[in-house]
């Protein structure tokens, strides 16, 4: 556990000491603010449905940027060799990196809580619905983060890690978009396993165990894949 905390602190320290962390965070907040403002002022509606439906797209572009250097840079700079020869297990390295990323994303989501707070001052906002939607957004982001961490473990170039992460997330998103054109069987499969479908289920305000479990299962899968990829490097 102390190893994970040490890794988390190191990542945050690097994020705070270098412009990388700030640039991505500020860009995310600006873009998400723009979409929130546009629905509020253009449609004149005091609800967040529009913002939450756009949010997955923001995640698709920004989460790979937050995660790309996490493992790729370590592999590129040779510092992974240092990490891997400290008395830590590979899984601790993966979890430490993942927690630092999750912390970053959670921090940004917490900052966006100013939107529902503003809205609640202006109109009658269904807080239960908003909280369920936030939980859905957080789970989706956590799942995307695990997928992007896996992308970062595949290569020693941060840029390639970004592209691979982006492609992975876009594939998940587009699969849901394309579902109506596919066969019924495939549609059912996508409804069952598509993370975006489950995200939309939760946006309705219903938090079901099946939705939550799907996200947790996918997170576990991608973290295991990252662990496997790092272990594989030692054996080849």
């Amino acid at each position, binding site marked *: 556990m102390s190893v994970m905390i040490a890794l988390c602190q190191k990542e945050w320290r690097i994020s705070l000491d270098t412009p990388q962390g700030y640039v991505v965070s500020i860009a995310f907040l600006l873009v998400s603010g723009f979409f929130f403002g546009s629905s509020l002022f253009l449609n004149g509606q005091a609800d967040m449905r529009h913002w939450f439906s756009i949010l997955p797209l923001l995640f698709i572009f920004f989460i790979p940027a937050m995660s790309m250097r996490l493992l790729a840079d370590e592999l590129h700079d040779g510092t992974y060799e240092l990490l891997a020869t400290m*008395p830590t297990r590979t899984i601790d390295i993966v979890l430490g990196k993942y927690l630092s990323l999750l912390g970053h994303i959670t921090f940004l989501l917490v900052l966006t809580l100013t939107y529902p707070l503003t809205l609640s001052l202006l109109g009658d906002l269904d807080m239960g619905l908003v909280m369920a939607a936030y939980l859905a957004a957080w789970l989706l982001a956590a799942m995307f983060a695990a997928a992007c961490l896996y992308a970062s473990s595949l290569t020693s170039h941060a840029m390639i890690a970004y592209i691979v992460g982006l492609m992975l997330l876009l594939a998940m998103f587009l699969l849901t978009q394309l579902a109506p054109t596919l066969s019924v069987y495939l549609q059912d499969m996508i409804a069952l396993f598509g993370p975006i479908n489950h995200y939309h289920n939760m946006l309705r305000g219903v938090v079901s165990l099946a939705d939550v479990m799907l996200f947790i299962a996918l997170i576990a899968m991608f973290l295991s894949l990252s662990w496997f990829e790092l272990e594989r490097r030692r054996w080849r």
Partner: protein
Amino acid sequence: MIKAESLCRQYGNQFAVQNLSFEVKRGEVMGLLGPNGAGKSTTMKMLTCFLPPSSGDALIDGLSLSQSIEVRRLVGYLPEHAPSYHDLDVEAYLQFTGKMHGLSQATRQDKIAEMSRTCGLEQVMFRRIEELSKGYRQRVGLAASMLHDPQCLILDEPTTGLDPNQIIEIRHLIRHLGEHKTVLLSSHILPEVEAVCDRMMIIDKGELQAYGTSAELSKQAQAGARLHTKIQGESSKVLARLKAELPELEVIAESTLEGGLLQCELYHPDVSCVLAEKLFHAAVAETSVLLEIRQEQASLEDVFRELTGGKS
């Protein structure tokens, strides 16, 4: 302290290290010599549990490499090019390393203060590693590798890319550390190994070629006795007398200097023929004077070239 038993490591079909067995005693500085691509780094990566061996094993203080977490606690490792987090300052980096090794805050503070003193880092503690010179980065790497007070230090080419002053500083540091710890260091710079190490081993193509102190290795490489001498007086008679006694004697190089002085290099295939003594007696018998007599020793460079096929 370190005992490798037929270590092997394969990359695909190629052996990077093959059947490597050696022992490093407690408190010894051992040099690992070899041309580039000989398997030095791979050997070190196996000993630090970064790469698992394809077959064979090594014992570090009696612990097998399969007990990797325990072994890593005993070993401090400085990889080639001393990688570190360039975005952190030195203090933060050492703190991070200490935390990763599970040191308590008080121990961490003590150790960081001690290591920064030992490695001369006090001036740069709050500078970003990115801004430091290569010599300082190397020292930061060394300090980080020793923070958890390991019994055994494994240093992969600790002086590459440094200027001569920095090389001498790092060498002093390693010698100083070697008084208390077991050190295994790799290099392809021969004078460095000669200056720093108690014993050395030479590997090539993943296999152990020679093993011993620098004097032992020189002896191994030298096939025969070689003598450099300057004779004044009846030099040709002296040589004729010596040849009569040692028929296999060869005069490799010969030149006449001013004043009838003969300078020559003698060679005899048998090391134990006491060439120098016989030359002296021959000179005395011919009432000539030997102005110089020097036994030629094979240098470590000769050993290295001979064992690694002149690839150096």
